């Protein structure tokens, strides 16, 4: 699994409001790209590691997994930059991106999804003015996080079933033969999930509109 999910430790970083953490992440991102010097990037990386491993006491594996998941992408990025500009620029670009990914991992690992969703809902509050429902946006994000692992598991299962009957275990052909049955399963699942949402009162929340109702 490549999604860093909440690691319940109970550190000062965990207790920080989700909005503050997301703001820090945004500031860091702006800083990394507005001041693209190796010193800034290096300092940011060290800072991220100190906060993540030292203060938040996250297991090294949580952060290592994120970096590992991106290894090919980072490698390609490095090679392209090294070839078109020079090796130092390549290394610097990779460093900035890696820092940002790790910082994002620290935020997700120290923040409950529900808190994160609440921030997004608050940011989407203006939607109410046009009759939108911010809590729906929040639910959408939570459900995306919930169903990505399910999706991966179903894909694995289909691949295993096909391999057991002599199908291609991997490669482009396996990918092609996995997609169709996976889509069928996903459509069925989407129907089941929508029933479950109904059964648990998804429609119960009355539509809130500003002003006289």
């Amino acid at each position, binding site marked *: 699994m490549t999604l860093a999910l909440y690691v*319940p430790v109970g550190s000062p970083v965990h207790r920080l409001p989700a909005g503050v953490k997301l703001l820090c992440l945004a500031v860091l991102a702006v800083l990394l790209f507005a001041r693209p010097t190796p010193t800034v990037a290096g300092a940011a990386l060290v800072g991220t590691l100190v906060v993540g491993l030292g203060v938040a006491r996250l297991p090294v594996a949580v952060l290592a997994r994120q970096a590992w998941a991106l290894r090919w992408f980072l490698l390609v990025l490095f090679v392209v930059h090294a070839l078109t500009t020079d090796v130092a620029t390549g290394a610097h670009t990779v460093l900035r991106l890696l820092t940002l990914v790790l910082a994002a991992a620290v935020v997700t690992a120290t923040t409950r999804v529900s808190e994160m969703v609440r921030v997004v809902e608050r940011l989407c509050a203006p939607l109410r003015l046009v009759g939108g429902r911010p809590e729906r946006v929040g639910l959408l994000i939570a459900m995306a996080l919930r169903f990505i692992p399910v999706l991966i598991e179903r894909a694995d299962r289909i691949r295993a079933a096909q391999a057991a009957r002599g199908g291609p275990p991997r490669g482009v052909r396996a990918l092609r033969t996995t997609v169709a049955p996976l889509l069928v399963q996903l459509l069925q699942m989407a129907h*089941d*999930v929508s*029933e479950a*949402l109904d*059964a*648990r*009162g998804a429609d*119960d929340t009355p539509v809130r509109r500003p002003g006289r109702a």
Partner: protein
Amino acid sequence: MRFRRSSAATADTDVAEPGRGIELRRVGHRYGDRVVLEGIDLQLTEPRVGVVGANGSGKSTFARLLNGLVVPTEGQVLVDGLDTRTQVRAVRRRVGFVFQDPDAQIVHPTVAEDVAYGLENQGVPPDERAARVAEVLERYGLAGHADHPAHLLSGGQKQLLAIAGVLVMQPARIVFDEPTTLLDLVNARRVAEVIAGLEQQVVVVTHQLDLLDGFDRVLVVDGGRVVEDAPPGPAVAAYRALMERR
């Protein structure tokens, strides 16, 4: 007034008559031209009701009628006097539903958040929500998993989580559609024990006949009709005889 739901809620409780249980009046259902259920006239007041029948006989459709997930194309379904056609919100608050596949009914990434979902929908304040979630997780042995990702739970734990998510809403009745089909023996037994211990009225659709031990009433569905309606012993015997004639 749309800011509060209180007006609607009181209206619902005013007309609900808890003693009446679940009533199906001349109920029939078709998908397009295909008749799936017909001629069903029942009143279910017993605390434990089972439903058995062959694949495709209409059990799931029957179960979905009971909380308004399916509205009958003919006749009427009433829950405590509330019509599933016109008072579906009130009906769903009284009738919880547990599905076969727990993966499809867990909608939040972590355990506690998922249990809280239904309460959020009901507008329960955060403090009370947290207390009720904690209590339910404790009862089903999931307290240690509150912040764990749901996808790391075992199949049995996932189904318990799904049940916890329904129970926390304190419905008066719960419908289960094949709750143990995807579980191994140990987990199926654990879920069966949980169901047996519920104080709510329970309607269980199942292919696992031992789940019906101690039930008050079992319906045998065949070709969209209720062909037997008896205590578990005779009902299961009739069901076996029916299947052997195939």
